[in-house]
């Protein structure tokens, strides 16, 4: 079994516990879209290139996530509603060590 469990708090505050595959080279933004948790067209509009910040999320659990690369950090520096635990969900790949991860989708801007 290559799936892990992830908890996603949507923009309205509802929590979705979903199963996420670790063998499909998917990222967290794609996971949100695959479960249609947010309206299509409001998340991941650049397709996952760290170029739009529409997939910004807040990491709620204490998981160790790989550090930001320059493009993600730069995009977040121009985004709105940014907090200390902000990340671009398109830049976080779904890997086994993320089992039990909890994150919240940032407001649309």
């Amino acid at each position, binding site marked *: 079994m290559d799936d892990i469990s992830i908890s996603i708090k949507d923009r309205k505050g509802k929590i979705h516990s979903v199963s996420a595959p670790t063998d499909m080279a998917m990222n967290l933004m794609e996971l949100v879209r695959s479960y249609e948790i947010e309206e299509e067209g409001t998340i991941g*509009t650049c397709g996952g*290139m760290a*170029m739009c910040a529409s997939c910004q999320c807040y990491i709620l659990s204490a998981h160790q996530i790989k550090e930001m690369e320059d493009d993600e950090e730069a995009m977040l520096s*121009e985004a709105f509603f940014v907090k200390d635990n902000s990340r671009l969900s398109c830049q976080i790949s779904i890997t086994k060590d993320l089992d039990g991860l909890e994150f919240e989708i940032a407001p649309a801007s």
Partner: protein
Amino acid sequence: MIKTDILIIGAGPTGLFTVFEAGLLKMKCHLIDALAQPGGQCAEIYPKKPIYDIPGFPEILAGELVDNLMNQCKQFEPGFTLGERADKFKKLDDGTFIVTTNKGTKHHAKIIAIAGGLGSFEPRKPILENLQRYEDNGVNYIIKDPQKFKNKSVVIAGGGDSALDWTIYLADICKSVTLVHRRNEFRGALDSVDKVIELKNKNKVNVITPAEIIKLHGKEKLEKLTIKINNDLEKEISTDFFIPLFGLSPKLGPLSEWGLEIEKNAIKVDTFDYQTNIPGIFAIGDINTYKGKLKLILCGFHEATLMCQSAYKILNPGKNLILKYTTVSGVQGFDGTKKEAEKAVVKSINS
């Protein structure tokens, strides 16, 4: 009034390929795009990124793909209305359409093909109280006429190429230019960053980092800004203009008020020919939705090709149409050019 057979809204890859497919069927196209150059997202957002799933191209840069598509369709002499957004449409009694842009340019066509991608790119606005009050009254998101800022004081916010480029440009004509960014690092072409550093060292521009604008002040118009520096110190500075340059984000915008059936922020179409609920208006590429839709450039090309067959029948009622292969028929441009395969040489061995 601009007249054409097919009015294409959106000059991205799908819109550009529509010009080619329509041209093969002798239909003329005109394109409207909110951006200043053709190519859509490929040209505006990721021209230097490689694309690996264009059939026949193991790898091609998005910008190169746009250049190729422009080259491929140029013999069909498309018209362009660039830097304008298609705002309103009206269906006339004869079934044709008038589309008017936000700048008042009118276009007349029998067919509309909406190839608007994710929508038109609108500036991303910072979240500031009273921002709307000062829009066009000291706050500008787009610089249309730089001379407007001549001998004025300007504060630019942002950390990307456009913030850097305008800082450099306006340094020459403004009384003062202040660039404010939330980080010390800028995300832009290295020579632009170097140039801004040089201007800063010569005291020609002020650069305040890490900092952000948190308040706008002024009675009739913008007069002052509050800047929060290093997440701590608040400072007020007087300015005539504030130009936030935080990039663009796509919005369906006025198209959502055309009476088209919308689902998931996209336009619903019939997969027979990608026509919308309004006869004569088609939607192709990323802007449409149907069961099984995939937002891929190659799917946009397919949709454009099928759409043109129906468009031909609307423009030429009663005329039968048969698919022609370019290998067989060649390509005859509206500009008088003709491309065709060379005839094979036939020669008898025993002669």
